[in-house]
C-alpha cells in the first residue's frame, strides 16, 4: 500500500507497523475459511451417511425466502465495491452512503434469517439435520454480524479528520471480509437449500 503521499516520518512509534495489517488479515481469512470447510465437510458426511436425515414431520427446507436473502447479500458485495470506489476518489460522503447501504443490506439479511429461524418446525437438537442447519447458518450469521460491526467502526473512523488520506487498510480489510462472508454464504446456500435430495 504505497501511496503517492509521503508518509509522515515518525508517525508510527514503537508498537505500530500499520502497513502489514492487510497482510495479516488476509492470512487470518485463509485460516478462518478452514473452519467453514470443516463444518461443510462434516455436514456432507453426516448427510450422506444418515439413515433418517429429515426429522419426523419435516420435509425439507423452504428456499424462496432464503433466496431473496441471498440476492440481498450478494448485491451488498456490489454496494461495498461502489463505496470503496468513492473512497478512492475521496468523495467521503458518497463513500459513507454506500457503506451504510451495505450495512443495511447486511442487517436485512440477518433479519430475514431470524424470520426464517422463527418459522421452522425443528430445533438444533432435532438430529444431525437440525444440528448442522443451525450450526452452519448460526456461525455464518455471527460472521455477518461481525462484518456489520466492523463496518460501523470504519464508518465512525471516517469522521476522524485526515484519517483516510493515503489509503485506509481497515476499509480494505472489512470489504475483503464482507466478500468472504458472501462467498461462504453461496456455498452454504448450495449445500443447505439446493442440495435437498
Amino acid at each position, binding site marked *: 500500500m504505497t501511496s503517492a503521499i509521503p508518509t509522515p516520518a515518525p508517525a508510527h512509534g514503537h508498537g505500530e507497523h500499520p502497513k502489514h495489517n492487510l497482510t495479516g488479515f488476509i492470512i487470518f481469512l485463509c485460516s478462518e475459511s478452514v*473452519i467453514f470447510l470443516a463444518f461443510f465437510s462434516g455436514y456432507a458426511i453426516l448427510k450422506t451417511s444418515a439413515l433418517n436425515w429429515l426429522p419426523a414431520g419435516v420435509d425439507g427446507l423452504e428456499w424462496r425466502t432464503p433466496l431473496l436473502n441471498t440476492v440481498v447479500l450478494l448485491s451488498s458485495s456490489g454496494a461495498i465495491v461502489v463505496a470503496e470506489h468513492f473512497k478512492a476518489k475521496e468523495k467521503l460522503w458518497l463513500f459513507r452512503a454506500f457503506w451504510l447501504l451495505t450495512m443495511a443490506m447486511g442487517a436485512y439479511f440477518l433479519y430475514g434469517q431470524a424470520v426464517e429461524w422463527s418459522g421452522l418446525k425443528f430445533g438444533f437438537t432435532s*438430529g444431525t439435520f437440525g444440528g448442522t442447519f443451525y450450526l452452519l447458518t448460526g456461525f455464518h450469521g455471527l460472521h455477518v454480524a461481525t462484518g456489520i460491526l466492523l463496518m460501523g467502526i470504519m464508518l465512525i473512523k471516517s469522521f476522524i479528520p485526515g484519517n483516510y488520506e493515503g489509503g485506509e487498510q481497515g476499509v480494505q480489510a472489512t470489504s475483503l471480509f464482507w466478500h468472504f462472508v458472501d462467498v461462504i454464504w453461496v456455498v452454504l446456500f448450495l449445500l443447505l437449500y439446493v442440495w435437498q435430495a
Partner: protein
Amino acid sequence: MTSATFPADPKPPAGWSRYFGFSTDAKVIGIQYIVLAFFYFLVGGFLAMIIRGELITPASDLVDRTVYNGIYTMHGTIMLFLFIFPVLNGLNNLLIPTMIGAPDMAFPRLNTAAFWLVPVFSLLLVSSFFVPGGPAAAGWWSYPPVSIQNPLGHFINGQFLWILAVALSGISSIMGAVNFVTTILRMRAPGMTLFRMPVFCWTALAAQSLQLIGLPALTGGAIMLLMDLSFGTSFYRAEGGGDPVLYQHFFWFYSHPAVYVIILPVFGIFSEIFPVYSRKPLFGYVYVALASFIIVGLGLVVWVHHMFPSGVSQWMRDLFMGTTMLIAVPTGVKVFAWLGTIWRGKLRLTTPMLFCLGGLFNFVFAGITGIMLATVPVDIHVSNTYFVVGHFHYVIYGAAVMGIFAAIYHWFPKFTGRMPYEGLGKLHCLLTFVGANLNFLPMHPLGLMGMPRRVSSYDPEFTFWNVIASLGAFLLGVSIIPFLLNMLSSWIRGPKAGHNPWNAIGLEWLLPSPPPVENFEDEVPTVISRPYGYGTGEPLVEHQAEIERRLELQEATA
C-alpha cells in the same frame, strides 16, 4: 526509545518487573512464554511422576483408577498445550525478529494478547481439578462417546473446561501464527531473500502455516463436541444419528500436523546449531529449507494413520499408509544434511551441541518406530499399546524437548547477557539422555507384548520393563534440577556474555547481548550472503567488520 545511532543503548530497560506485566516487546514476551511453559513442564512432569509411580507395581495402588484417567489426560494436555506450544512460541518471539533483523513482531499488541491468553486458559484447565467429578478423563484426544458423557450432570464439568481451554489455546495460537507469518514475510532485513533466511525461520514459517491450516478444523470439531456435551445435539452421538468417527477426522486433521508444528522448529534448531559447532556450512541448505514445505504438504494428508483401527475403509488405510511413508523422504533429506554437516567438521562438544546430537539420535530411533506404525498391519497390532506411547515420547521428549534445551543453552547468552555453566549443562544433558532412553525404550517391548496404554494396573508379566521405565522417569525428574539451578544462577550471576560467545554467524549475533529493545532499530545491516558461511570467510552483511568492531569496543568499555 530515543534516536537511533548505531551503538544503541547497550542495555534494555533493566528490572524484573517488566516480565510480570503487559509488555509488547517480543523479547520480553518470548521470555514470559518460556518461563510460563517451564512452570507447566514441572506440573506436567509431576503428573508423569505419579503415572510412573503408579506403574512401578502391577496393582492399581497409588491412585484410584478414575483419578488415573484424569492424570494421564491432564499430563498429555498440559505438556502439549501449556508446555511445548508455549515454549516454541517463546523461541519464535526471541529468534524470529532478531534473526531477520526486524525491530519487533508485525503486530506487537496482538502478540501481547496471544501470550496473555495462555495463563488465562491454563487457569481454566487447572481449575478443572477442583470441579465435581474432577478433570477431563477421556485422554488428551477426547474421543466421543467417552468425552460427551456427563454422568454427574453438572453444567461446568472437567470435560467442559477442557474444551474451553483447548479452544482458547487455539485462538491464542492463531493470533500467534498470523503474527509470525506476517513478520517473516514482510519484515526481513534488506538483502535477506527467502533463500538467505536462516533455516529456523523457514521451519517456523512452515510450522505456523500448519497451525493456520489445521487448527480451525480442531476448533470446529471442538465446538461440535461442546454442543454434544452440553447442549444436547448429536453430531457425534451414534444413537442420535451422529458419527463419532467424524470427530476423529477433525481431531487428527489438526493433531497430526501438530506434531510437525512441534518438530519442524526443532529441525530448525538442529540446522542452526550443528553448523556452529561443526564449523561447516549447513549441508544442502536449499534442500533443508524446502523440505520443510514438502513436510507441510504431506503432513496435511496423513492424519488417517491414527485411525487405522477405527473402521475406516481399506482404500483409505492404503492411501494414508503410503503418504505417511513418503514423509520419511523429506525428513531423511534433513537427517542426511545434518550428518553431512557434522561429517569431518571440527566438532566442539558444548552443551547445546551435545543436546542436539542426543536429540538427533533419538529422533532417528523414533523415525524407525514411526515407519513401523505407519504400516497398517503393525499398527493394528500395537495400536493403543505402550509401543505408541514409547514412539511419541521418543519424538517429543527424546528429540523435541532435547532440541529445545539445546536452543535454550545456545541462545541463553544472547537474551540474558550471561553465560550458562557448562558443567551443569553437561550433567543435565547426560541425565536427560540416559533418563529418556531408560524411560521410553522399555515401552516398546511392553507394547509388543501387548500392554495397553491408559491403564493403572497390568499383568505381572509386564513388571520388569515397567520398573525400569519408572526408574528412568525418576531420573528424568532429577535431571531438571541441574537445569533449573543452571538457569537461575547463571541468569543472576553468570559470567557476562559477549555479543557472539559461540563464534556463530547470524544477524542475532551482530546485536549486543542482550539486544536493545528495537534490535537494530533503523540501522538494519544489509545481508549479502547465505547463512552458515562457516569456514568460508565470507561476511554475512555489509560492513560486518565495522559492526563487530563497534560491538567489541562497547563490550570493552562496559
